[in-house]
């Protein structure tokens, strides 16, 4: 995070070496004020190499955001539930051989109130879908969703079945998709690592802040009703829309 030459110096009293600015009294005055969005100097003005150097000497410099995300990403507690064969691989990922505990995610919570991560592992039937959405709504923010396996992504081998939901992303937002039928436990671990990277990159403020810092982003989604022929509605248009099919030159 090295400072670029043209950016205003965040340190009060410092003045810009830019000649054109220095001669303009208005601009010089402006550059002396600390803009609100510049992070605290300790975190913002030091290069990664310098920080590594300090760390070697036993001095840890970090930011609140980094500390917060580091803690969260290494204690992702999944919700303990499985829907079909993929759940067996999820269980295997928790065993000694694959050991999801290495990533701090071994505490499978039996209550959605205590869970951070919903691993949708298996076929979501239409009869089950409202319950899955309800569990998602009961999880407190910050929360994440992994769609594990072809079924949870798209209906998988049962895509043409009348009773299978064609992907859980039709009702709740999915962060990580893990393809496979079933994905190996290593693939689930890889998905978890990808989720950790995603969490570590999340912002606490600003327009691209994480969902749980934004009042406008919903954390609950409407639960579909059991209709006479299908779920009602069959998908949540606020969350999912069918991609436009363009096949140039083809019908």
């Amino acid at each position: 995070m090295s400072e670029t030459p043209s950016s205003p110096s965040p340190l009060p009293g410092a003045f810009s070496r830019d000649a054109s600015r220095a001669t303009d009294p208005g601009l010089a005055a402006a550059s002396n004020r600390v803009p609100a969005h510049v992070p605290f100097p300790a975190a913002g003005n030091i290069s990664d190499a310098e920080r590594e150097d300090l760390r070697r000497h036993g001095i840890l410099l970090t930011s609140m955001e980094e500390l917060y995300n580091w803690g969260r990403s290494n204690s992702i507690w999944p919700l303990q539930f499985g829907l079909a064969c993929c759940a067996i691989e999820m269980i295997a990922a928790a065993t000694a051989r694959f050991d999801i505990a290495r990533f701090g995610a071994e505490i499978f919570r039996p209550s959605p109130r205590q869970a951070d991560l919903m691993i949708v592992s298996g076929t979501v039937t239409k009869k089950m879908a409202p319950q899955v959405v309800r569990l998602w709504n009961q999880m407190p923010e910050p929360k994440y969703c992994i769609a594990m396996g072809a079924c949870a992504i798209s209906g998988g081998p049962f895509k043409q079945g009348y009773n299978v939901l064609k992907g859980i992303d039709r009702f709740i937002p999915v962060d990580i998709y893990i393809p496979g039928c079933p994905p190996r436990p290593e693939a689930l671990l890889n998905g978890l690592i990808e989720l950790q990277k995603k969490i570590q990159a999340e912002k606490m403020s600003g327009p691209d802040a994480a969902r749980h810092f934004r009042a406008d982003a919903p954390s609950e989604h409407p639960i579909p009703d059991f209709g006479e022929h299908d779920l009602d509605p069959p998908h949540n248009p606020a969350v999912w829309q069918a991609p436009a099919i363009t096949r140039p030159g083809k019908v």
Partner: protein
Amino acid sequence: METAGQIRDRLLARFPGATISLLTNPGPAAEHSLLVDAAHGRAIALFLRDDPALQLDYCSNATGVDSPEKEIVETKKVSTPDPAGGPAKITEEKTTRTEPGYIEAVYHLYSMALRHGPVVIRMRTANRSDQVTLPSLTPVWRSCDFQEREIFDLYGIVFAGHPDLRRILMWDEFKDHPMRKDYVEPDDYEWEPTPHNEVLDRAKTHFAAPAASAPANAPAAPSTPAAP
């Protein structure tokens, strides 16, 4: 064990008013079945279970079969003699008749005590719409419970005398019977990356809108007919 034919003869002697027909199976297993009329179904089932020579005490499987209405075209050759004495004129006459549809419940019975089986019995509903009631055999064989509920759910046969007749796989509000041959499933896989065959035909109904906004420099596509 007696053959299906022998069982049928014994049943007819025991239940003179019943209609029982033998449906032969041409396959190598020759697993023939007995079509039993619904009115005597329960009594016949009890007889099969309690008869000392059969003791069919275990119903391993109950399932449904849907037979929709069939149009049968029969061709008959009619020869009309020529009044002038020439060769008789042969014309073909086609008659069409509709065979009414029905739904069948099929039960596979075994004897645990005598280690034989299976004996297959079937019952037919009168039609596929309003007369779909058959006697439940759950009071005879407890193992029919869930399977008859499944038949009720997916085929729509109503089992009179079933202790707990509710849908078992689909939700209670569901109105259709998905295993019937005329069931129309909801069109909810509108997007498919590489559709082909029937899926392509279904996906086409969703193509129409984006096809109109296809880029102008795309090769001229044959005009897409509007989605039906």
